[in-house]
């Protein structure tokens, strides 16, 4: 088995995405090759912009309701209309914990491989141009192919 770690980031919750990035950067720092497979709500974590053009009415509604980027993710608990995530960010800054944006950049710097689920993008009407650069598009086989070679696989 290769020294690989594979994560499925299904959740788009701030706290769960944070845990995913901490594990990913930690594993990369411990010499593992890390794959992060972003699917469903997790895709919000790798968005850089929102585009409404060429989208149908339901896709536009979904686009409007989804977080715009990694800094806008809600907490899984006690979000309270955004007040919870605002407080959490304040606390993280005070305790000098890296922000999600910093963790994302660190993961890129450590050459963590980002894969985005094509099917979820299709369903949710997300275009690749809305995502950060350097993301590979793939399907379930792409993830499983990596997971089979990984010592650690996680679903977050």
């Amino acid at each position: 088995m290769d020294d690989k770690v594979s994560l499925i980031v299904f959740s788009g919750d701030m706290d769960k995405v944070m845990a995913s990035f901490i594990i990913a950067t930690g594993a990369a720092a411990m010499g593992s090759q890390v794959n992060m497979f972003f699917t469903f709500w997790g895709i919000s974590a790798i968005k850089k912009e929102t585009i409404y053009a060429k989208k149908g009415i339901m896709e536009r509604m979904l686009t409007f309701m989804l977080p715009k980027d990694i800094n806008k993710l809600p907490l899984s608990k006690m979000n309270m209309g955004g007040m919870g995530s605002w407080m959490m960010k304040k606390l993280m800054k005070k305790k000098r914990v890296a922000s999600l944006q910093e963790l994302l950049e660190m993961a890129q710097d450590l050459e963590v491989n980002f894969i985005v689920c094509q099917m979820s993008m299709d369903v949710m009407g997300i275009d690749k141009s809305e995502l950060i650069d350097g993301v590979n598009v793939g399907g379930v086989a792409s993830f499983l192919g990596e997971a089979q070679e990984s010592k650690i696989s996680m679903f977050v």
Partner: protein
Amino acid sequence: MKGDKVLDCKGLACPMPIVKLSKGIKEVNSGQVLEVVADDPAFIPDVKAWCAKMGHGLVGTNEAGGVYTAFIKRS
């Protein structure tokens, strides 16, 4: 004990000290000692796990007034 090079990770929380360490170790030669200073209370157990995984030698650790120091010999 003194390291050949000092890496300051004070003020950083998990996982940043380990991330910085993974880059910092490349700045000393094989056989040289990197001295890492941090104030994250999880640093010592983390640095032990990191050294075991990466195959570098943990030559010594100490704690004084909430500041943790690890001496790592690059393999």
